[in-house]
């Protein structure tokens, strides 16, 4: 499918931007109508709220990496499985296995679904 490579590029660009702290590129990956659903509350979060959260993370966390990325493209979107590695301000390195499903419109993420296990949140946030 000729659009596969565009969708793959979008997916890579999105996660690379978060890793590099490149807010402008990250922002350009989301369509104006974008909403993000998370499995911890099963609610759709607005574009603005999600970007603010990512921006805060990019500015305060020493390091964020999406490792072991496995992407598959389907008609209208993609699914990426990865392990998120986050270095916290106190030096703790947290990890979380995530499955991210992105639905794409006009080369941008229009709707996203993020699945992860909050039952293992201590592995991600560190000891409280």
């Amino acid at each position: 499918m000729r659009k596969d490579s565009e969708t793959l590029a979008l997916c890579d660009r999105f996660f690379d931007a978060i890793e590099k702290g490149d807010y402008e590129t990250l922002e350009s990956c989301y369509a104006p109508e974008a909403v993000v659903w998370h499995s911890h509350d099963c609610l759709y979060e607005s574009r603005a709220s999600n970007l603010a959260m990512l921006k805060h993370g990019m500015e305060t966390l020493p390091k964020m990496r999406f490792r072991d990325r496995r992407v598959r493209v389907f008609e209208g979107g993609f699914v990426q499985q990865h392990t998120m590695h986050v270095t916290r301000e106190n030096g703790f390195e947290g990890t979380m296995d995530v499955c991210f499903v992105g639905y794409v419109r006009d080369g941008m993420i229009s709707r996203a679904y993020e699945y992860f296990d909050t039952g293992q949140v201590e592995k991600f946030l560190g000891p409280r």
Partner: protein
Amino acid sequence: MTTEYEIRELCERFFDAYENKRADILDELYSDDCIVWHNVFGKDTTREDNLAAMRVDKGQRRRTYNDRVINVFHDGFVIQYSLNGVMHDGHVGPALWICIVGKVRAGKITRIDEYMDSSKFPAWSGRDRK
């Protein structure tokens, strides 16, 4: 070569088999070397582990796999769905919202990667009730 329609139907048959507790159908659908990875355990399990687990009574009289949104690629599928359970005592908790990525080869499932939120289990099974 498996067509997108065959992969989609395979995915549906797989979940119908879990819903109807048909270990015989699952036995056919899992490849011999199939690995099932669960985010909740963070490790690989075998087809035998999973077929055995299906036979264990986890306290549900009935479970249904609803709201199935399936997307297909040349070698597999991703499915987003809600798992609903009715316990033996009649309790119906909030659904579990789950995502599975499946790999398919020659009409069989060769790998399952399952993403659940284990913090939702107590409410789902009613174990959090006083």
